[in-house]
């Protein structure tokens, strides 16, 4: 579920890559990402609006597979 202001979309392949999931969890300064027990990526919905638009997640993943959406621009 998106936040009021921010949504983060992650391609299924990237979300299922446990190494990438770990990396995304580490780079986000506001804990938008976490890992499920099986290592898959989980989006922490309650933290989405804390996004500081640093783009570290976008840079950590293969190009175009993580997208940060400013809902207020829609």
């Amino acid at each position, binding site marked *: 579920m998106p936040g*009021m202001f921010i949504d983060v979309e992650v391609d299924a392949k990237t979300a299922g890559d446990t190494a990438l999931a770990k990396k995304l969890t580490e780079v986000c300064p506001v804990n938008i990402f976490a890992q499920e027990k099986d290592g898959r990526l989980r989006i922490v919905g309650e933290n989405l*609006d*804390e996004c*500081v*638009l640093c783009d570290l997640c976008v840079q950590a993943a293969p190009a175009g597979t993580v997208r940060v959406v*400013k809902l*207020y*621009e829609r």
Partner: protein
Amino acid sequence: MRFYEYEAKALFARHGTPLPKGQVARTAAEAQKIAAGIGGPVVLKSQVLTGGRMKAGGVKFADAPADAEAAAKAILALEIKGQKPRGVLVEQRAPVAQEYFAAVTWDGRRKLPVLIFSDMGGIDIEEVAEKHPAHVARAHLSTILPWSAYRAKEAIVAVGVTGDDLNRLIPIVSTLVEVFLRYDLTLAEINPLGKLADGRFLVLDGHVDLEGDARDKHAKLLEELGIGKEETREARPPTAFEIKGAQVDASDHRGVAGNVREFDGDLGLVIGAGGGSLTLFDAIRKHGGRPANYCEIGGNPSVRKACDLTKLILSKPGVKKIAVMMNVVSNTRVDIVARGVIKGCVESGRDPAETIAIFRIPGAWEDDGFTILRKYGVEYCDRTVSMDEAAGRAVAKMARA
């Protein structure tokens, strides 16, 4: 954080500063015992964190222990400016030949501590400085370079003190400076510093204020002086609203969003930025507005923290609207605060467009912030609108509400 007189004197005593014989009593019977132990005339002083004790009847004299008991009973029953006394300080009454003043405090303009000394003690030092400027000496001191007693000597000599008096005063005044620096005080004052008929000096009254942020650093000292962690030492106990504000602020390490003070108006304030909050509060009042609260927000609080602060303010009975205003910000993001306050309105079941009277925070990430505000129909303004004008707009909107 202010100390009671007996605590200030206990601190001075640890450093060898000469004090009259005395002790604090919690009951009239204790006061009687202390007076009997001292032997001879005593002075009894209400232990409250406010001035004007003498005028209010909080200082009495007694020649015998029985008189001391009666005086203590009266003092302990007397509220001064709404404060019940913590106890009554019973001290030997010293025959004073002359009163002096010595204090160390912060000079906000020079950004340095300043030692102030006068040979006209016992009265308000501002009045002495105005009417008898030659009797007040000042010496700024460094918080980096070591303190030297010769600086105290210079200040004392500057008001014309020489000879034995000078020699006796130097260690007292120099120690006062050392205490100020060592314990991160914002005020260390002896007034009056009494010269007795036999030439000795005694600290007759003392005031100490500790920097609030230094409480943890000096936890051991405070414990030894019997000052509890729960003691805020503020002018009045915090209200439930203020306690909740502190909880919001403590909920997350990022930035500041709290330090609320409750007022009885109808316009909630989400304000901040390096003194801007005080300016904005005054501006609201100048325009005839009635603030429901004072608060401080800044240093990039999380969206949740800004949201929870907004919800707290909106939960206060009688708050019709909020004004969200800061000076030009560089270390706080406009978009983050905008998200927080809008979310706070929505989670409170209120329409942000109706609830936010004005949003005036220009600065970092303002383009994103203004985009958010436009989406939710909130009136906002940039830096071309002064804080004063923004406050005026908020008050005008309240009048139309």
